[in-house]
Each structure stands twice: as structure tokens, then as C-alpha cells.
């Protein structure tokens, strides 16, 4: 077994680059495997400069020194304490011979010198965000990472500023305030830099804010365009070039008419998740968050343009198409998860697709030039929804699980954080498989009367979550995109809240909330190596080639986030409704891990 595997790997690396060799190694038949567009995923250079790794968001590195046969020897190269006790969702970046690590609030950026033994601190930059922002951050005070472009590191702060820092010196180049915490706006997302623009969006979908996405000039920090997720067409940047695929998205000012009067002003649709960019089509892809409040009785209508995916022109912000994954969302199913851009054969034709494992429970494959849904296949136990109608694009809800005011509706699967929340999947360029870290959970939901007071939560629901069928709450699944089915899956006791990463060594890395950092075989799911870090892992693993020419793997440990708030926020486990109902499922986490942020970097001996 071992031997034949080794042989397959050697053969595959000899023919690396040839699609035939890859298809053969995969054991697949004649058709070639999916691949990201070359313009969005350039050749491997050993760095990791943005959380998604590349514009196609594949989170795949071609580095293969660490591989299935030697990963068992992986050991700690160095560690670094961030000094922060909140949830660490961010991705460590490597540019040249410097590593950049961004902590959750207070959002301290550390630069580590990889040329020196132990990677000592080069400099740190502290943006000193307003502490009051912590009160209006719904689900721990996380940050999903910095990003690098043209000699600068860009990131968002919890108090809704965007900063640019000189990557060599740590000097602040500019800092722009883009949101108002007193209205409930915070920022947690990682910016995407497309061309000369830094694209960012706000958080605060649980506080009655109005979502937006905004492009800042990378040189000056000045706003170039801003598009809201609700309201009149001109605010949403919908104009003559907007050509949605489905009829339900066509018409004037749907961002107003699909809401009760003025409800869109507090309608949510925040843009707090991932973005991708296709340089060939010159299209930027971003999702929009849940409509507010959670109590859907307050907002009859489709609630455009929340819970959907937009394609926009990054130069002007003009919308090109939009697809709504959950019209009139009733369960907090933000559409902010990653969009993986691939070119693949679909029914005998090459298609430019966008793959989105959604909170609704389906992995969506869209044509990224038009917004047409090619497939939507379930990857989670479902009771709340039955499918997606490919003719209309509409999600089909199960009427039995629709919320009723002041009545507890039981056993709704998936839960409010969805089948899968923000934590991104990885696509291996070698296996052609998508690796999805996700949940297996259900919930009870009672709709209550919300009360809009600016700067305080606007939710209107009592929730309690619990494990799904089988009793485990997390799953790590290898997903066949074309067939729309799971190839293998690894069950985890707690929900998976960490990102995934795939490498040229045919490995996939992820961490669990108990603190285990794991490497599994990309083809079989066999567990090959694991290491227990100091706290639960909810970060995004990355890998790079060090100045010594060796491959390293990095991850932040430090439990928290919505799922881990019970530990990072010292919540009281007796109240199941704490942390918007997550505590009900996570009571045991306190007995398993404690808080504290530490960077771990691994290498071969």
C-alpha cells in the first residue's frame, strides 16, 4: 500500500504539469480535471501573499517538499504569542523573507524576520482601535487576515477603519475610517486588492446596519466607489450593464420594492466574507450577508440584495450579475463564503465556473460569466430546505420549518451559522477535489419581536443549537465538484471553524477546536500527522518556502469566533441561548480547551 502510493506520487511529480498525468494519478477517466484560470492563479513562487492564496481563492500551494511520505516527521520550527486571547481566524502571510501575523482586536500586525533563527520580531504596528467596537461585534472580535500588494499590507480594524502599512518598515501609509461603530458597523473581513483598489465591506448584520462593499485607492486610501446591498438601484450600483440570469432578479429598484417601506435601511446584507477576482473577465465576486432582523416576519419579500453573490466591475463597482442563494432568508444564511474560480468541463463544454459551498447546505456551481446555477448539491443533513430549483434559481424551503412568531420550531438543519460558515475550503490543483471544513448541526428557533435601537442588536430570535445526526458537530469532506458528492469525510467532535489548505505534496491541512492541527492524505483522507497546539484552532493554515529553501507550514491557534465564543468570551454555559444559541452546543468546549493566541510554524527535521 505505502509503496504503490509512493510510486504514484513519484510518477505524478515527473509528469507534473501534464493534465494527463494528473488525471491518471487521480484515477479518473479521460476528462481533464478542473483548474483555476492561469491569470487568477499564477505559478507557485513559494510565498503566501493573500489569505485565499490567489485571486481564484483555491488555497493551494504547489510546494511539495512536505508530502504524504514524510509529513509524519513534521515538527515545530518556531512559535510566537500574539498576546491576544480572542479568536484567531486570520491567515499568516509570507512575502519575501517576512511573515505577517494579524491578531484579532486590537488588530496588532506583527512582522517576523524569517532569515533569522526563531524568526524574531521585526516590527509591530498597533492601529489602536476604539475599544467600544468590541460591544458591537456579534461573534467574537475576530479578523480574517491581512493582504499584501505592491509593498504594502492592508487590513481592516474592528472599529471600521482600513489601514495600509509599509511592508518593510511597518510605517502607516494611510488609515481611512469607513464605518460608524455607533450604528453597529464593525469590520472583520480580509480585503482583496484587485488592480489598484483595496476592496472591503462591513460587518454588523445582527445590528440593523445597511451592508456595503467599497473600493479604496490603494495609493491614497480614498474611496473610489461604494455599493450598498439594499436600497435603490443607484445605491446598489445597478445600471444598464446589470444582466442577472434569473427573472426574479430583474426589475427596477428591487432593493426597495422587495422590502416593507424603509425596512431596507436596516436591512443588513453586510459584506464581511470572501472575494475573488477574475482578471480575464475583469469581474470581482463578493457575497452579501443575511437580511436584518433575523425575524423574517418583519420583512416580507425577497429582501434583495441580501444573501446573494454579486459580480462587479472592480473599476467602477457596477454590478454585472447577481444570484440569491436564499430569497427572503429566514435562518441567517449569509452568502459570504468563499467563491472558488475554476475552469472545467461541464456536460461536454468548458465552462468558467464559481464554486461556493453555501450556508444553505448546498455546494453551488455557477457559471461565473452569467450567474447561471449549473448545480447545487447538498453536503449537510437537511430538514429546512429540500433543494434548489435550477429553472428559477430559488431555494426551496420546507414549510414545516419556517419560523412562526412566539413558537419554538424544532430540529431545523442546518443551523444559523449554516452548513458551513466563513472558514474557507481549499481546492487542490492536483486532485481536482474541493476540501470543505464544515458543520453537522441542527437547531431550535423561536421568532421574537425585535426592537430597532441603533447601535444595539437587531435580531428577534432565540436559538439553541445541537449536534446533527450521528452526534458529531464537525466534518471535513472531500467533495467531487462535477458529481456533486462527497468522496470521503472525517468526523470531528466540535464544529470545524478553521480553514483548509491543500499542497502539491498531496496533503490537506486543517485544525479542530480542540487544538489538533492535522495533515491528511488528499486522495484518501487518511490521517498522516497531527499536533496538539495550545488552544483550539479556527485559523487558516498557510505554507511557504523559507529563505533557506525549505517548505514550512504555518497556522494560528487561539480558540474563539462565534462557535468558540463560549471560551474566548468566558460565556456562561448554563445559558444555551448565549452567543446567539451556539453555547447550547458548545458547553463541553470549556472542558477541552482554553483561550490564547499562538502562531505555530512547522518544518521537516
Amino acid at each position, binding site marked *: 500500500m505505502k509503496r504503490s502510493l509512493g510510486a504514484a506520487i513519484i510518477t505524478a511529480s515527473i509528469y507534473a504539469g501534464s493534465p494527463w498525468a494528473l488525471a491518471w494519478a487521480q484515477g479518473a477517466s479521460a476528462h481533464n480535471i478542473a483548474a483555476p484560470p492561469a491569470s487568477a492563479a499564477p505559478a507557485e513562487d513559494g510565498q503566501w501573499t493573500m489569505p485565499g492564496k490567489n485571486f481564484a481563492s483555491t488555497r493551494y500551494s504547489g510546494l511539495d517538499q512536505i508530502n504524504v511520505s514524510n509529513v509524519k516527521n513534521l515538527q515545530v520550527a518556531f512559535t510566537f504569542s500574539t498576546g491576544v486571547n480572542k479568536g484567531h481566524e486570520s491567515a499568516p502571510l509570507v512575502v519575501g523573507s517576512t511573515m505577517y501575523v494579524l491578531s484579532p482586536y486590537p488588530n496588532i500586525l506583527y512582522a517576523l524576520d524569517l532569515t533569522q533563527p526563531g524568526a524574531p520580531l521585526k516590527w509591530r504596528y498597533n492601529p489602536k482601535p476604539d*475599544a*467600544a*467596537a*468590541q*460591544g*458591537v*461585534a*456579534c*461573534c467574537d472580535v475576530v479578523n480574517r487576515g491581512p493582504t499584501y500588494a505592491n509593498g504594502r499590507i492592508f487590513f481592516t480594524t474592528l472599529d471600521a477603519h482600513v489601514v495600509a502599512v509599509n511592508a518593510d518598515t511597518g510605517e502607516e501609509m494611510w488609515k481611512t475610517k469607513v464605518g460608524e461603530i455607533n450604528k453597529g458597523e464593525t469590520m472583520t473581513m480580509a480585503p482583496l486588492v484587485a488592480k489598484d483598489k483595496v476592496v472591503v465591506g462591513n460587518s454588523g448584520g*445582527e445590528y440593523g446596519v445597511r451592508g456595503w462593499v467599497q473600493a479604496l485607492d490603494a495609493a491614497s486610501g480614498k474611496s473610489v466607489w461604494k455599493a450598498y446591498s439594499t436600497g435603490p438601484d443607484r445605491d446598489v450600483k445597478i445600471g444598464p450593464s446589470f444582466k442577472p440570469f434569473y427573472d426574479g432578479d430583474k426589475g427596477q429598484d428591487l432593493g426597495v420594492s422587495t422590502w416593507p417601506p424603509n425596512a431596507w435601511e436596516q436591512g443588513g446584507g453586510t459584506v464581511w466574507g470572501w472575494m475573488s477576482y477574475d482578471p480575464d473577465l475583469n469581474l470581482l465576486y463578493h457575497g452579501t450577508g443575511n437580511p436584518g432582523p433575523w425575524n423574517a416576519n418583519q420583512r416580507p419579500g425577497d429582501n434583495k440584495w441580501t444573501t446573494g453573490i454579486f459580480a462587479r466591475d472592480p473599476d467602477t463597482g457596477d454590478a454585472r450579475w447577481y444570484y440569491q442563494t436564499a430569497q427572503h432568508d429566514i435562518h441567517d444564511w449569509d452568502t459570504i463564503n468563499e467563491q472558488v474560480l475554476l475552469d472545467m468541463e461541464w456536460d461536454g463544454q468548458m465552462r468558467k465556473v464559481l464554486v461556493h459551498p453555501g450556508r444553505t447546505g448546498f455546494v453551488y456551481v455557477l457559471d461565473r460569466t452569467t450567474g447561471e446555477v449549473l448545480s447545487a448539491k447538498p453536503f449537510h443533513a437537511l430538514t429546512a430546505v429540500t433543494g434548489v430549483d435550477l429553472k428559477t434559481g430559488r431555494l426551496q424551503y420546507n414549510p414545516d420549518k419556517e419560523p412562526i412568531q*412566539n413558537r*419554538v420550531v424544532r430540529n431545523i438543519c442546518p443551523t444559523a451559522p449554516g452548513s458551513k460558515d466563513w472558514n474557507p475550503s481549499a481546492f487542490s490543483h492536483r486532485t481536482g477535489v474541493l476540501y470543505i471544513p464544515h458543520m453537522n448541526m441542527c437547531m*431550535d428557533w*423561536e421568532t*421574537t419581536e425585535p*426592537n430597532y*435601537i441603533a*447601535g*444595539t*442588536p*437587531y*435580531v428577534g430570535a*432565540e436559538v*439553541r443549537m445541537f449536534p446533527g445526526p450521528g452526534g458529531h458537530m464537525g466534518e471535513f469532506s472531500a467533495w467531487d465538484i462535477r458529481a456533486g458528492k462527497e468522496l470521503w469525510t472525517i468526523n470531528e467532535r466540535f464544529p470545524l471553524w478553521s480553514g483548509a489548505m491543500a499542497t502539491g505534496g498531496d496533503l490537506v491541512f486543517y485544525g479542530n477546536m480542540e487544538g489538533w492541527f492535522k495533515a491528511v492524505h488528499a486522495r484518501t483522507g487518511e490521517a498522516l500527522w497531527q499536533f496538539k497546539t495550545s488552544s483550539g484552532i479556527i485559523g487558516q493554515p498557510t505554507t511557504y518556502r523559507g529563505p533557506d529553501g525549505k517548505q514550512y507550514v504555518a497556522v494560528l491557534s487561539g480558540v474563539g469566533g462565534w462557535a468558540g*465564543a463560549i*471560551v474566548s*468570551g*468566558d*460565556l*456562561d*454555559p*448554563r*445559558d*444555551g*441561548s*448565549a*452567543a*446567539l*444559541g451556539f*453555547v*447550547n452546543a458548545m458547553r463541553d468546549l*470549556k472542558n477541552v480547551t*482554553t*483561550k*490564547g493566541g499562538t502562531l505555530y510554524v512547522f518544518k521537516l527535521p
Partner: protein
Amino acid sequence: MTRGALMLLCASLLVGACERERREFRRDPVVASDEDKITMSSISPGGGQPAAQSSARAKEFENNAYHVSQGKKYYTWFNCNGCHSNGGGGSGPPLMDDTWIYGGSMENIVRTIKEGRPNGMPSFRDRIPDDQIWELAAYVRSMGRAIPQDVAPGRNDDMHPRPAENRQPYVTPIPGGSTPPSGLAPQ
């Protein structure tokens, strides 16, 4: 025990006043709470306890079932539950545990609500009338049951996410400060 039964009990015992049940429909002019002696520390230079004082007003509110149940109503009206859930916490710290960052006395809690606190507790001064703030504080004290059992609210009619306030064991507030003393979070 229902309120009616208690009333009967009060009457039958011919007790002059039953604090739990008392309602004042016109309140005395407000005593400026800023003059209360409030402390957030249990140490004071020169030895001895810091000068602190629990006002009669505090007792009046927290020993009164009407005030506590009004406080429970305002707790959702003013969206306290959005940040503190049903006491277990969310973006704000838990209120049903025994550990207090800014002190667990009525006066401390009234201050917290009025002035806000730096890590994200909004200031409700001039947003909530004074009496209602005291009622809120009395309810907050009931969440971890720092007040008499017969005053604390019973279980909710709807979703039952936590044991009812009056089912909790009595707790003594502990000055916790903002950093837990060890990696072990307060349970």
C-alpha cells in the same frame, strides 16, 4: 407561589409592610445617584475597606418582585439580551455568573448602565428613565440570584434556554476585573 397567595399571606400575618409586594405609584424626588459612595475596588490605601455604601434605594428595588419583573421586561425592550443573551453573555460578558468586572452591587450596575463601560457597553444615560435603570439593575442582580429567591422571576413561557432565575442557588458577587485570574475562565 402566586402573587395572590402571597398577598393573602402578607395580609393574614398582618405584617405592616411586605417589601416584595410593595408598589409606589408616585416616587419621591430622585436622590442624585452620583452622590452615592460607589467603589469598584476592594482595597483602599491606609488599610480598612474602601468607603462604600449600599443605599436604602437599592434594597427597595432589589427586594421588590414588581421592580424585578419590570426590569426583566425592560431587559428585552432595551436590547440588553442582544448583547448579554439570557444572562450567559454574547458580545457582552455574562451577567448570571458571580464575577463582576465593574462591581456587582446595585449602585455599580446602575452606574454601568448609565455611563457605559469602555469595552463596548453602551451608555444609556438619558435614554432610559432613572427608575427603569434601577429596575434593570435589580433584574440583572436576579440573573445570578444575588437577591432573595421569592423576588426572582420564574421560568419563561417560551423557549427555556436557561434555568429560571428563582431556581439558581444564591451567589455572592466576586470582584473579577477584566482579566480572569488564570487561564481558567469563570464558570
